[in-house]
């Protein structure tokens, strides 16, 4: 029993953090809003070159052979800078899905190799989301239909852009027609793969929300320290201190469930629903609280387009509802807990959430 990350995991996360801090700033994000695609191919290539997009791809398939636990701290850093590029969904959802499909389907194997090399990009749809993120820059799309997963080239689908309040997010309604030819998985296999994708997507969203919450707390503390009213920093007032302390409590207590979820997904993915839903719910609560109190601490400044807080706030609002909103995940928790056979109690925290 050891609930800590390894030195290597922490060091890797630190390096990625430094890289992202240098490359992704509120200024760079604002510049991306002026670009039609909203995306920066140069930055994406750098992320690919660092091996991040294929981190979870087994070494035999050309990736780094790492797992969800190795990636979760990175996803947190992506949230901290409000990265707009779809690194988390590519690494955590798209590539594991492709690498599961690759042994049976040559197209998926070829695509995985291209993706790992940075020569192709892919977007993943899921019933939990309805809309598909970053479909416009994808060469291929993996799309669900009932218990089936279909692989379609972008020119086989029609994209209808759906504007989000978060100017970084690019969402699309996808019109498409599948065929036997495009179907890459179905039946029990399709259901299992879609369920796994949902859990990985939810883990990625939860991790980003923790990073977002921490970023908003840091910004708000800084603002409250510098803003003078009645002759002193507004942050000296207990009313604001306590709001920020509540954000810190929520955020810190969401981390252990997040890491437990990442661990469970990496070791026993078929038993991870409970842990993932717990993480997604509490990370969402932490991020939404940091957004709400963060805005209050900033006063009118927080309500402006010009001040950077809204970049983080809007992402938190969006991710809380993506890959299963709180209602979806709470419902899974309710169903699990209210089952009279649920194994609960102080001695059952680890490894029994079957």
């Amino acid at each position, binding site marked *: *029993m050891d609930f800590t990350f390894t030195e290597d995991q922490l060091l890797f996360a630190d390096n990625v953090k430094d890289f992202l801090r240098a490359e992704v700033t509120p200024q760079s994000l604002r510049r991306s809003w002026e670009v039609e695609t909203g995306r920066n191919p140069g930055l994406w290539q750098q992320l690919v070159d660092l091996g991040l997009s294929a981190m979870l791809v087994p070494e035999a398939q050309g990736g780094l052979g790492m797992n969800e636990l190795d990636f979760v701290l990175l996803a947190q850093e992506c949230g901290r800078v409000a990265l707009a590029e779809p690194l988390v969904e590519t690494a955590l959802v798209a590539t594991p899905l492709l690498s599961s499909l690759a042994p049976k389907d040559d197209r998926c194997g070829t695509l995985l190799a291209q993706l790992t090399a940075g020569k192709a990009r892919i977007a993943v749809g899921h019933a939990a989301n309805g809309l598909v993120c970053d479909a416009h820059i994808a060469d291929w799309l993996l799309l669900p239909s009932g218990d089936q997963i279909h692989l379609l080239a972008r020119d086989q689908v029609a994209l209808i852009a759906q504007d989000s309040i978060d100017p970084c997010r690019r969402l699309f309604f996808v019109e498409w027609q599948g065929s036997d030819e495009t179907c890459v998985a179905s039946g029990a296999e399709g259901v299992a793969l879609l369920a796994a994708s949902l859990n990985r997507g939810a883990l990625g969203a939860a991790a980003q929300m923790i990073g977002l919450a921490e970023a908003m707390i840091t910004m708000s*503390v800084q603002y409250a320290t510098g803003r003078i009213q009645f002759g002193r920093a507004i942050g000296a007032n*207990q009313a604001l201190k306590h709001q*920020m302390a*509540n954000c810190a409590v929520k955020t810190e207590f969401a981390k*252990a469930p997040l890491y437990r979820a990442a*661990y469970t997904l990496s070791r026993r993915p078929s038993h991870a629903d409970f842990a993932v839903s717990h993480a997604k719910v509490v990370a969402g609560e932490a991020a939404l609280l940091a957004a709400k109190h963060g805005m209050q601490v900033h006063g009118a400044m927080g309500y402006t387009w010009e001040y950077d807080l809204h970049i983080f706030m809007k992402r938190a609002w969006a991710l809380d509802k993506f890959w299963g909103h709180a209602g979806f995940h709470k419902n899974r928790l309710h169903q699990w807990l209210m089952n009279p056979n649920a194994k609960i109690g102080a001695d059952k925290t680890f490894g029994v959430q079957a």
Partner: protein
Amino acid sequence: MDLNYTPEQIAFRGEVRAWLADNVPARPLQSFDTAEGFEQHREWEKTLAKGSWGMVTWPEEYGGRGCNLIEWLIFEEEYYRARAPLRVNQNGIFLLGPTLMEFGTDAQKARFITGMASGDEMWAQGWSEPGAGSDMAAIRSKAIRDGNAYVINGQKVWSTRAVFADWVFCIFRTDPESQRHHGLSFILVPLDAPGITVRPIAQLNGLPGFAEIFFDNVRVPLENRLGDEGQGWHIAMATAGFERGLMLRSPARFQETAKRLVELYRAHQNDILDLSIEDAVVQSFMDAEAYALFTYQTASRLINGGKIGAEASLNKIFWSELDQRMHETAMSILASRAELLPNASAAGDIGNWLDGFLFAQSGPIYAGTNEIQRNIIAERLLGMPRR
């Protein structure tokens, strides 16, 4: 990261479970805030000590088993699972014990840890004064050197378990000219010393769970001082860290309460009209789970050489407010029976929820109010301006 227990840890759990199954009293003991109940609990402490289960983290020479914090958590899980009696000596074993380990001389450790490990000496805490509650640096009670003794005069209040305890650990002003947190010392005082008057204070349940202690020229030897003269504040902050942080409230306590809450909910599911109750039950369960995960994380970090600091305040807020919410939810489920004492004939299966509800009200107050904890988090963890 490895979230599996080792074979040794699994075997340890089995050993704890078996011993508890053989030794936990079949009938619940009376409240330790009665004279009779206190002695029953003292006997239980002695039983624990005989099996070397009194404080498993202590070295064997002090009656422990030299366990690490993960094993301690396993012990606690089994302890609450077995519904074993509450620890009447929690001030001693969970607060003073770790403080003695860090700041005590070998002679003090041998003298005092052995006494509390054996169940022979029960401890109370004497920090608050009428004018020094949240503002503990306003302490006025004095311990003035006279030869090889301190002469103590003053008053302590809200001293938990002081009515029946044998000893009290206190903070006194040893430098009469000093201000605030300077000039304070940490001193151990036998409650039967001449010049001490203990006046019980009845708590919400009518029982004398805490007391005022009056000191009138009480003499204690200099060797009863823990750490250096004037180091009292520093030591007290370490004790408070144990109190708010890991030791005092192990997660098992809340996980077992959450489990009982789920069972209570299931038993009454069909009578419940308030739809928010099921959500509160699930929320409670998840929060207890999160507290356990957080604690395992902290324990792992400490085993790997980390320290616990101001983040103990996060902990204290989380468990105390969780405990309150769980008991509020239970009271909502029990509805019109919630106010009944267990001896009322209409009480039925209400168990000890009311008792727990009353105690849960004190959680956000003792060990430093949650408002103070929020200030600590804002100022020391987040770096917000003090003034």
